[in-house]
């Protein structure tokens, strides 16, 4: 496949405010589909300015910004904004509109019929686990955290692929904040959205981002993945921003899911019969099978309960497949994933590559191994007498290339 066209591309962009105040200079940045990009910097670094130029809330003084390859200057600003989700720090829910009206502002602007809007609104509140009767309430009847949930889904309701978020959680308490970070990360991964997220909180950036853009005085200082940022900060400024604690910790903290996953998950295609499914379960000694299509794309899972109850009525695996499945990307950091697996109480989590193809599985047993290594590896600083001196991470292991992963993928096919 040729080099994918970036969703958003900054070409030598400059913004000078009235009075000659230079906000940003020489910004060159590519944002690809499906990325979670955090713009981070101190106040006045130009991060918000950079973000607001994407949906033409601010016009660049010089340079060019492309959205899906098209110069945004040639797109009608109003039409452009309706394609881009927008979440702001102060939430900005319309106090005089019900939650339903708030969620469906953009669909209404796009003249969706009432029925479709109603359906979408219900789907959206379900997505953030709020009860449907909230739709008829007013924003003031909701807590701050609930309001920002609505703020987030309002930005998704018209199926926007790109979401801009300007310090959306800045005003929330730490617990709510964490819950909402989980939420946006899950939504972004599940729905394949591209997010541009402005923050000044490094923890937040490290937790959420797949790409971190560090800015200072209107310049991009470093544009890297969280792991690179932790392992190779570009200069003193980035080091300070990241903080010494995290840099020390990072050494033991950069294990990716791919490094610990089991590479031979029990999987089956939807066309197979239930009898075949049962015999595979028996052979592999498992009670759940992952369902993949012929290209090995993850489609869902089947479990023993549904197999048992629907054995009479269903004929193929496809009939009883449950499609709501939680999965992680193979490049996700273990520290984040472990946290989520444990919190949500899953027994296992399938691992997919960037094309949604199943490449492995992380079980609680594999977590135990990883946690064991990490704890005993890291604690040598504090417990000199500790006998477990083995390195926390297999440092020499190169991340597998896509073709290598493809070879591993053959394994489940032996069914």
């Amino acid at each position, binding site marked *: 496949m040729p080099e994918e066209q970036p969703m958003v591309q900054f070409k030598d962009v400059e913004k000078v405010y009235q009075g000659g105040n230079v906000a940003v200079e020489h910004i060159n940045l590519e944002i690809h589909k499906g990325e979670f990009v955090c713009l981070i910097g101190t106040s006045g670094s130009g991060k918000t300015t950079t973000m607001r130029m994407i*949906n033409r*809330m601010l016009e660049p003084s010089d340079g060019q910004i492309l959205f899906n390859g098209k110069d945004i200057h040639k797109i009608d600003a*109003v*039409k*452009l*904004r*309706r*394609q881009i989700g*927008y979440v*702001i720090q*102060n939430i*900005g*829910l*319309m*106090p*005089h*509109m019900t939650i339903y009206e708030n969620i469906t*502002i*953009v669909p209404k*602007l796009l003249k969706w019929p009432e029925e479709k809007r109603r359906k979408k609104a219900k789907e959206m509140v379900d997505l953030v686990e709020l009860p449907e009767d909230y739709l008829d309430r*007013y*924003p*003031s009847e909701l807590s701050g955290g609930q309001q920002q949930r609505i703020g987030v889904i*309002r930005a998704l309701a018209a199926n926007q692929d790109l979401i*801009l978020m300007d310090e959306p959680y800045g005003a929330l308490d730490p617990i709510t904040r964490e819950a909402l970070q989980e939420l946006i990360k899950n939504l972004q991964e599940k729905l394949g959205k591209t997010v541009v997220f402005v923050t000044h909180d490094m923890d937040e950036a490290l937790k959420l981002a797949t790409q971190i853009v560090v800015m200072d005085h209107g310049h991009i200082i470093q544009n890297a993945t969280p792991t690179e940022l932790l392992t190779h900060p570009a200069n003193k400024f980035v080091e300070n921003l990241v903080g010494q604690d995290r840099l020390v910790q990072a050494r033991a903290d950069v294990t990716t899911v791919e490094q610990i996953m089991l590479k031979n998950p029990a999987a089956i295609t939807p066309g197979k019969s239930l009898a075949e499914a049962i015999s595979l379960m028996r052979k592999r000694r498992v009670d759940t099978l992952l369902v993949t299509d012929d290209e090995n794309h993850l489609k869902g899972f089947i479990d023993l309960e549904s197999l048992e109850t629907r054995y009479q009525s269903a004929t193929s695996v496809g009939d009883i497949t449950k499609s709501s499945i939680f999965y992680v990307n193979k490049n996700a950091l273990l520290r984040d994933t472990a946290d989520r697996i444990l919190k949500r109480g899953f027994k296992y989590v399938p691992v997919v590559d960037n094309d949604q193809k199943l490449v492995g599985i992380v079980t609680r047993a594999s977590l135990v191994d990883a946690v064991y290594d990490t704890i005993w590896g890291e604690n040598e600083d504090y417990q000199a007498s500790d006998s477990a001196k083995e390195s926390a991470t297999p440092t020499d292991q190169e991340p597998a290339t896509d073709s290598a992963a493809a070879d591993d993928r053959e394994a489940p096919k032996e069914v």
Partner: protein
Amino acid sequence: MFAFLNTHGSELITKTWEQLYISAIALGLGVIAAVPLGILLTRFPKTAKVVIGIASMLQTVPSLALLALMIPLFGIGKVPAIVALFIYSLLPILRNTYIGMEDVDPVLIDAAKGMGMTAMQSIRQVEVPLAMPVIMAGIRLSAIYVIAWATLASYIGAGGLGDLIFNGLNLFQPDLIIGGTIPVTILALVIDWLLGRLEYHLTPVSERA
């Protein structure tokens, strides 16, 4: 009192009606002119100061003098009275519309714009509904002024309840003065109450006090 109503009853009804419709037309024109102007001025803050200054100045012209000034321009009768009252109704509506629109949280306007509302959609769907209580307060204030001052319009031959009152003054008949004043007061109260109901219905549910 019955004797008064017997002799002046039908006159009272016609005069009240005249008073009402002179005021209503003046106020209606005031709303039509001042609300859009007030909204427009929020887009041009520098011009706004000048325009509101001029409106304030007009407000300070004594009402009798203003009515008299209308005569060379429009002659006598209802037209000059309506024009003069219209000028008086402008300021409260204009100022309240401007303040109400300015007071809308800029965050909400930013959100509306960022979601892809045009300027017009933002005004109609976000800013005006939120500014509505303040705008309506201005309209109610204007309504009371206009109804009260319409009494003076009788001086330039516009008719209305002022006729009764001035007759009473000229003929030393206190019952005519009282008989003219009470309906003006009642009229003002009733209109204010009706506008209050209107305000309630125009105000978004969540913003109602």
